[in-house]
């Protein structure tokens, strides 16, 4: 017969977080009456050093072989307590947690009812603990390679840091060139650096390293496996122009097809065969297959025969230990008619203005609107941020206030006689950027605070902005030659596609959610996947660079190891019970189950490396042969049976 089950139960006060609402002493007293419970205690902080020591001492003293801690969510401290068991010589999976903080004390006010609920939760945890079995962690060999998805400034920084540390890096960028939005910023505030120069300096070093492989115009189409051994499939879309391209521009001249230029945020046009911008990486022309008519003019004129309209897409497979997701953002796109957008050429976005103000941009830095120099320029902040419209996010986009002011100062330099208005909800020039605000005030930029969104009236060439000025409590009308919408950051329009491949979860603002905002700010909820840059929410260039380095540092903690240990909560077959019906095979989303010949019959067989531990096969098994470790039928039934005592 198996050994006697001896359970220790520990009720945490979490200071007053739990003890303030739940009568912890009563819960502990109650726990001590439950079957197999040898000792039940309550303590102010179970996760603290003395709290952990208490468990270890009790394990020795009372010969405990199951531990239940009633405290916070297992997402916070399950690992902490498992390690306590390990250090005390017990199998770490003989541990169960009852969540009496997030699910109980923080959610309720009534002390009586919260205490009763805590008792129920403890009883359920003890019931499961009775059925727990020791499990062995799965040892996975770490592939010393990383996959970085997204070649903007955050992804580039992460890739460079990892490559410098000696790991092989595969960098996959969806667009034909690296650099993302950063490469289109004319001047990064107080660094005095152009965005494209910053990108070039990183890319220059990156391409010089032998352990880096860059895929542009490519996307990751599948990602299988887990930390230590992800298998990724990359689709490399054809460029139709190869590296022989000398940038002679002859093809661009003869190409008959035009479209608006997304690299200038729609200011000006580009051809179907085009170079995204001067000095981009890779500096090779590309054909846009969406609009190309395959007329063949470019093929005929190319002097070095670099154009091949029949180039096919190809696929590459890589195995990596970690994945860094750095897919960035897209600017908020106002609807047609929203604040006059797309009703007049005189209403533009902040991103478009930045391109216009760029000396290397489409207007060579000249601010000309409809052939004339604007005299009255009105900026409207918080477009698409701060809940200013039903479609807008509730968040602050962090970079718009500062970008509006640095643009206003630039306009003040080139057009000293202009009238510049900034209509703002709040001013959030945090940190060093506060200087931009003071300089703007000193140089006569007029600030008007609004609470209700201003209205932009477009009638032919005449535009006026009507705003209720909070300080005077009345509406004013400002005639404008140019209206700049300070659009914020929204999630990347490709994010949905990415999320169907990389399994990470999103917050309600649509950005990817980190595992914990303070404790694990660059970790995704899934082991081995890290997040860099604006994929988790609005960030400035500088913040994105910091974030990229942080993600690389976190990824190194896996890559520097030879092995990682995966949670053994995977499916397992009881071959004696398995009838070989193989219903489970069709259930598995990872193709982890196969048929195994066992003497004269066939049984299901689980590949422990491929199994991710969802348990859907276990739910489908008619004979109960397939069981998910740690979530076995008998363990869950034990919880259900005692749930209402």
């Amino acid at each position, binding site marked *: 017969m198996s050994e006697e089950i001896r359970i220790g139960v520990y009720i945490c006060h979490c200071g007053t977080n739990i003890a303030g609402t739940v009568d912890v002493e009563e819960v502990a007293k109650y726990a001590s009456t439950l079957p197999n419970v040898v000792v039940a205690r309550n303590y102010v902080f179970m996760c603290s050093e003395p709290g952990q020591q208490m468990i270890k001492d009790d394990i020795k003293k009372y010969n405990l072989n199951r531990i239940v801690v009633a405290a916070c*969510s*297992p*997402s916070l401290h399950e690992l902490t307590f498992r390690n306590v068991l390990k250090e005390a010589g017990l199998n770490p999976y003989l541990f169960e947690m009852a*969540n009496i*903080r*997030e*699910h*109980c004390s*923080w*959610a*309720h*006010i*009534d002390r009586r*009812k*919260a205490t*009763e*609920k805590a008792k*129920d*939760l403890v009883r*359920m945890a003890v019931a499961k603990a009775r059925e727990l079995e020791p499990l062995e962690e799965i040892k996975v060999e770490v592939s010393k390679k990383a996959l970085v998805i997204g070649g903007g400034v955050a992804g580039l920084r992460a890739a460079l840091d990892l490559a410098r540390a000696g790991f092989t890096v595969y960098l996959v960028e969806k667009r034909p060139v690296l650099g993302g939005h950063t490469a289109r910023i004319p001047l990064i505030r107080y660094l005095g650096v152009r965005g494209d120069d910053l990108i070039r300096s990183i890319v220059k070093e990156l391409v010089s390293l032998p352990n880096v492989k860059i895929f542009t115009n490519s996307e990751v189409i599948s990602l299988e496996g887990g930390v230590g051994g992800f298998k990724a499939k990359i689709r490399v879309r054809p460029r139709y122009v190869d590296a022989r391209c000398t940038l002679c521009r002859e093809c661009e001249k003869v190409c008959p097809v035009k479209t608006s230029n997304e690299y200038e945020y729609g200011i000006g046009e580009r051809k179907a065969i085009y170079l995204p911008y001067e000095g981009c990486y890779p500096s090779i022309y590309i054909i846009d297959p969406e609009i190309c008519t395959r007329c063949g003019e470019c093929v005929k004129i190319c002097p070095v025969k670099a154009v091949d309209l029949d180039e096919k897409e190809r696929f590459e497979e890589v195995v990596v230990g970690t994945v860094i997701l750095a897919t960035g953002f897209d600017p908020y796109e106002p609807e047609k008619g929203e604040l006059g957008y797309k009703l007049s050429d005189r209403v533009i976005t902040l991103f478009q203005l930045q391109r216009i103000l760029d000396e290397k941009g489409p207007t060579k830095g000249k601010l000309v609107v409809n052939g004339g120099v604007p005299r009255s320029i009105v900026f409207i902040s918080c477009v698409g941020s701060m809940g200013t419209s039903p479609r807008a996010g509730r968040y602050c986009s962090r970079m718009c206030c500062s970008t509006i002011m640095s643009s206003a100062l630039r306009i003040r330099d080139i057009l000293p006689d202009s009238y510049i208005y900034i209509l703002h909800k709040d001013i959030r020039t945090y940190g060093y950027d506060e200087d931009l605000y003071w300089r703007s005030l000193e140089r006569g930029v007029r600030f008007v605070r609004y609470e209700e969104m201003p209205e932009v009236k477009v009638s032919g060439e005449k535009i006026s902005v009507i705003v209720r000025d909070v300080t005077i409590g009345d509406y004013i009308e400002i005639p404008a030659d140019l209206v700049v919408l300070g659009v914020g950051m929204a999630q990347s329009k490709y994010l949905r596609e990415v*999320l*169907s491949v990389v*399994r990470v*979860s*999103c*917050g*309600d*603002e649509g950005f990817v*959610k980190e595992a914990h905002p303070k404790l694990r700010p660059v970790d995704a*909820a*899934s082991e081995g996947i890290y997040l860099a840059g604006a994929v988790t929410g609005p960030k400035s260039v500088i913040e994105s660079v910091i974030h990229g380095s942080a993600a690389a540092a976190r990824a190194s903690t896996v890559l520097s190891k030879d092995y990682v240990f995966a949670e053994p*909560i995977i499916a397992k077959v009881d071959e004696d019970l398995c009838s070989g019906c193989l219903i489970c095979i069709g*259930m598995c*989303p*990872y193709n982890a189950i196969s048929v195994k010949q066992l003497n004269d019959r066939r049984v299901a067989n689980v590949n422990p490396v491929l199994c*991710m*531990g*969802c*348990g*859907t096969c*276990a*739910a*489908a098994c008619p004979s109960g042969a397939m069981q*998910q470790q740690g*979530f076995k*039928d008998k363990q*869950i*039934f034990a*919880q*259900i*049976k*005692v*749930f*209402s*005592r």
Partner: protein
Amino acid sequence: MDEEFEPKILMIACNWCSYAAVDLAGTSRMKSPHNIRIIRVMCSGRVDPQFILEAFANGADGVIVAGCRLGDCHYIEGNYKTLRRMTLLKKLLEQLGIEPERFRLEWISSADAKKYVEVATDMVEKLKKLGPLKIRFDELKKVIEEVREIE
């Protein structure tokens, strides 16, 4: 005087979305009814319909199964399997004489703490009106045996 009926509700929640949503509700100090007890599984796809029957047989007045939003499943498509299984189960529960209000399948994203509170509040309100589960499984077994005898 009789105390107000307090329904007992079991919720089986997936680790990645709905369990995290309940965590978030707590962290945000949103107040929710105390009637709900949660069992955590990794994926709603782990939920065997038998769990729900067992819950009703063991004193549950209501059961909620909650997973990630469709398309957002951490395990690619586990919640679609849940959807299929639970759709069939709903029919079975009806046959057994268990009112449809007593069982809910909900998709709650990890950020949607508000939805959890709404679902929980609504369910408790409805079950208070409905009263305790009338049919007990021991009675049900008796009925089945009686039917057999008649045959």
